């Protein structure tokens, strides 16, 4: 493992019965880097996220985070080590107001550990974080139950919950899906700001144009295998990638 790597995925396989969801996947991620994980539908992107975050266990291979073997570790323990994720299909606590959704990560052992037991006013912190991701404080949107919020706000809430955990690595699973161009344009600066703050990010996206604006590097998957890795302009010229996306022989 490279001494500077924050995350290292080495030779990871995952089978679901007879289906090979991920096959011999290896890649590394340096601190402060923004990696795009792309590929056609069903190529194993979300399975890869689930493998890194402990929601599924690899059939084979190892995953290291900050030099520590996290292969098969329980999801809550991985969160405590500093990996936060969002879900492709948003998963708020629907029966709670948006700001109460934030209180739960603010009470988490990860935040407790970082804050040294001193949290301050959690409600105020929750509202500040929501404002940071675009909840208008004056419109009282933050006080509404998540069940009545439109998709754009739910995606922002998903992002805010991940930020609240103060992670070293954030994995954003299709954050832009289901959003309008204007909504994506308003979220992009938030991600750019996170990058400036030194956050390491993995983004899974189908909105390639927006992703390539901010990604340092991309990994392309197809049928569970890595078919290309590198800067976006180079990767998209690859024959294998063109074939995977366009279905044509180069």
């Amino acid at each position: 493992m490279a001494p500077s790597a924050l995350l290292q995925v080495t030779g990871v396989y995952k089978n679901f019965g007879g289906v090979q969801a991920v096959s011999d996947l290896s890649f590394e991620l340096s601190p402060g880097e923004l990696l795009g994980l792309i590929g056609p539908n069903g190529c194993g992107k979300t399975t890869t996220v689930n493998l890194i975050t402990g929601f599924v266990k690899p059939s084979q291979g190892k995953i290291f985070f900050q030099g520590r073997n996290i292969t098969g570790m329980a999801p809550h323990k991985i969160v405590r080590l500093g990996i936060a994720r969002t879900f492709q299909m948003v998963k708020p606590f629907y029966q709670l107001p948006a700001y109460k959704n934030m209180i739960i990560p603010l009470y988490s052992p990860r935040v407790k550990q970082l804050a040294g037991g001193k949290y301050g006013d959690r409600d105020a912190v929750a509202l500040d974080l929501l404002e940071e991701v675009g909840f208008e404080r004056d419109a009282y949107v933050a006080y509404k139950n998540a069940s009545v919020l439109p998709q754009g706000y739910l995606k922002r809430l998903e992002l805010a919950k991940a930020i609240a955990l103060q992670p070293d690595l954030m994995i954003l699973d299709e954050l832009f899906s289901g959003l309008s161009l204007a909504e994506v344009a308003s979220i992009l600066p938030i991600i750019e700001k996170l990058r400036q703050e030194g956050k390491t990010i993995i983004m899974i996206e189908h909105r390639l144009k927006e992703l390539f604006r901010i990604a340092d590097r991309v990994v392309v998957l197809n049928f569970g295998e890595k078919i290309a890795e590198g800067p976006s302009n180079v990767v998209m010229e690859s024959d294998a990638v063109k074939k995977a996306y366009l279905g044509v022989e180069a």
Partner: protein
Amino acid sequence: MFLGTIVYALVNSVILALMAIGFNLTFGISGVANFAYGALYIFSAYASWMLMNLLHIPYLPAAVISILLTTLLGALMYRFVLLRIRGQVLSEVIATFGIGLAILELFRYLGFVGFEYTLPVFIDRSFFIAGTYVDMQRIIIVIAGVLIVVALWIFTHHTAVGLAFRGIAQDERTALSLGIDSDWIATLSVSFGAGLAALAATIIIPLGSISPGEGYDVLIKALAVCIIGGLGSTGGVIVASFIIGFAERFTDSYIGSHWTMIVSLAAILIVLIVKPSGLFGKQKELEERI
């Protein structure tokens, strides 16, 4: 007679709510239908009785110790049995029912049957309210019921563990992704449920006697209340307790005591036919499930 019936219906409703609230809490958070619930209720009562009569410990400390013991038993039950079969609903029901059966029938086998097995009332006094005498224990039950519901609300809305309880109840994967240990919270939910069963027994048993059969009755009543109210809904439990509590007392006063059990069962049947998920249930209705 009418006002007196209302007073006793109110007490009966609070008793039902106390009997059901622990079962509901456990189910709402961990999804475990704890069929050992009635046995835990009786275990706590026998534990208090033994501490008082065999070790000569005064009632209050004996009650506190037995509540703690029952809470611990709930936690052990989860860690050593339920954790291994988590998510397999039928296995959970069979395992918890088996544990409950073992506890209750062990007490029966050891000869803990008879009117001498009872717990003392807290204060031996009665008051004349609305044209009828009401003993202090029943008034304590009503006050305790209100306090427990308020305490539970504060706990689930304003404490870290309470919020984690609500998080797990709503979406376990999300809770996990925020660093909440769902197995630990489920353990706490089963042990808290057991503790609430023990607390209910401490307050309610002085009105009658301790017997293994009472354990089965408590389980059936808790199930009836939770099914009518909607499994997992605290508001539903309270409303259902009042519906059954009032229906039972009015049936007893105006139709006949032998009809009271039928009223509860009929209420379950009617609710299941009209609204299968219960009055405030969050499960999908039949049309949505198809």
